[in-house]
């Protein structure tokens, strides 16, 4: 494969000067089909892009014809590391994530997954080999927990015995074994439990890569802290390549082996958690400041 040679041996995902922009003002419903036909994955992307437009992913002026969400991104994500993409809303972090599993394709540049450009992958095969967890879990309301977890194995036509064994294993992994969780519907679960099922579903087919888009963002603070701690443990054990999107520096520091900070669609910092806090970039400082306030406990309530 010609692209293989440029990739470091242990790279699992690589962005090569990737820019992603959308033509026209954001349109959701009446988007003409084939608006992004240059992506080369029209069939699969057309549904995905509609949702991308609903998210405040990028900077755009109201009348511009091209809205650039991320520009000139070069980034290597090594096998087994947990890379956290940190940034404010609209900084482009979700866009980067969606470029990895070809929910989006780059306007220019290329994204290599396991040494192969995403545009060369069959998008279905690529996505089934990558776990994906989103905020609010996105569980199928008409599927039981077991059916949700079994999604990718079912799509890949595993035999029934193997699927049920795997579902049981996954439930145990995320701490939902015991009880009747397998036969419940998502509406019968708490937010935290739903998110656990989301993680179990993403891991069911044992993907090498796991993408997580603010998975704990919608949870109450106590449950969130609980899941963050457990997931940090889990991540260490699993040795997956994890790309984790968040706007919460605390979460980033807890989970990351490396933090990539995005601002206005550009990478402004890329370092280990330890070094990250020492960086002088104003955006790093801004994030650090939000953390500092909490640590010092100098809110109004602390003053007597």
């Amino acid at each position, binding site marked *: 494969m010609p692209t293989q040679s440029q990739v470091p041996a242990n790279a699992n995902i690589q962005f090569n000067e990737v820019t992603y922009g959308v033509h026209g003002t954001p349109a959701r419903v009446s988007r003409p089909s084939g608006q992004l036909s240059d992506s080369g994955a029209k069939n699969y992307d057309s549904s995905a892009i509609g949702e991308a437009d609903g998210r405040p992913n990028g900077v755009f002026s109201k009348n511009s014809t091209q809205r650039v969400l991320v520009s000139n991104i070069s980034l290597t994500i090594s096998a087994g590391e947990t890379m956290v993409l940190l940034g404010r809303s609209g900084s482009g972090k979700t866009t980067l994530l969606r470029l990895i599993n070809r929910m989006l394709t780059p306007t220019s540049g290329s994204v290599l997954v396991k040494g192969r450009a995403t545009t060369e992958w069959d998008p279905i095969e690529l996505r*089934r080999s990558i776990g994906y967890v989103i905020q609010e879990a996105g569980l199928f309301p008409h599927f039981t927990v077991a059916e949700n977890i079994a999604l990718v194995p079912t799509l890949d036509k595993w035999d029934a015995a193997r699927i049920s064994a795997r579902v049981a294993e996954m439930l145990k992994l995320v701490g939902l074994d015991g009880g009747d969780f397998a036969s419940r519907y998502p509406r019968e679960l708490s937010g935290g439990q739903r998110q656990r099922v989301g993680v179990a579903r993403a891991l069911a087919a044992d993907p090498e890569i796991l993408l997580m888009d603010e998975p704990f963002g919608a949870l109450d603070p106590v449950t969130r802290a609980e899941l963050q701690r457990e997931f940090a443990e889990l991540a260490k054990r699993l040795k997956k390549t994890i790309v984790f999107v968040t706007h919460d520096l605390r979460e980033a520091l807890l989970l990351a082996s490396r933090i990539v900070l995005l601002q206005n669609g550009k990478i402004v910092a890329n370092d280990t958690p330890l070094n990250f806090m020492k960086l002088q970039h104003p955006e790093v400082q801004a994030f650090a400041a939000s953390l500092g306030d909490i640590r010092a406990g100098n809110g109004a309530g602390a003053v007597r």
Partner: protein
Amino acid sequence: MNVYTFFTTHGAEIFSTTLQHMELVAIAMVIAVAVAVPLGILVVERPGLRTVALGAASVFQTIPSLALFGFLIPIPYIGGIGERTAVVALVLYALLPILRNTYVGLTEIDPAVLEAATAMGMTPWQVMWRVRLPLALSFILAGIRTATVITIGVATIAAAIGAGGLGTFIFRGVAMVSDAVILAGAIPAALLALVADGLLALLEKRLRVS
């Protein structure tokens, strides 16, 4: 002649006319569902076709029913006097509620669910059959229910073009200035509508995914 005597003396005729009415409605509904549901699926990803289809279906609904039956009579193949013309008109009327509900049901799905479905590697076909359609089912059924109730009512007018049905009594009663005869058509038609509405509501409730 009061209503009760008419019902007792013409019981058999009322019964067979009611059956004929039901047949008319059933045929029209089967065709309408067979056309509108697939069309609703098709328009999800095709905004151009969607505008045309929903627009056309809306236009049919605005044509006064008696006029629509009249318009169809001179048209070759689908027109003429009798049941076939009536079925065509009823289908045209039933399209909009089914089509619109199918489309709305398929599109008003939590974006996170659709995002997950695609991102986990479902093909567009699988997203439609395993996610969108099951989740839209109660919506689609609600559309079919509305359409059925409308069709039962509109089908009474089909008697004007010789298609038979409970409208026969209504038109006859109007001509005879007899409430009893009018009610012989109106009461069974109203009961049919209520029963159909109730049964379909029950089915809809059972299929709803909250």
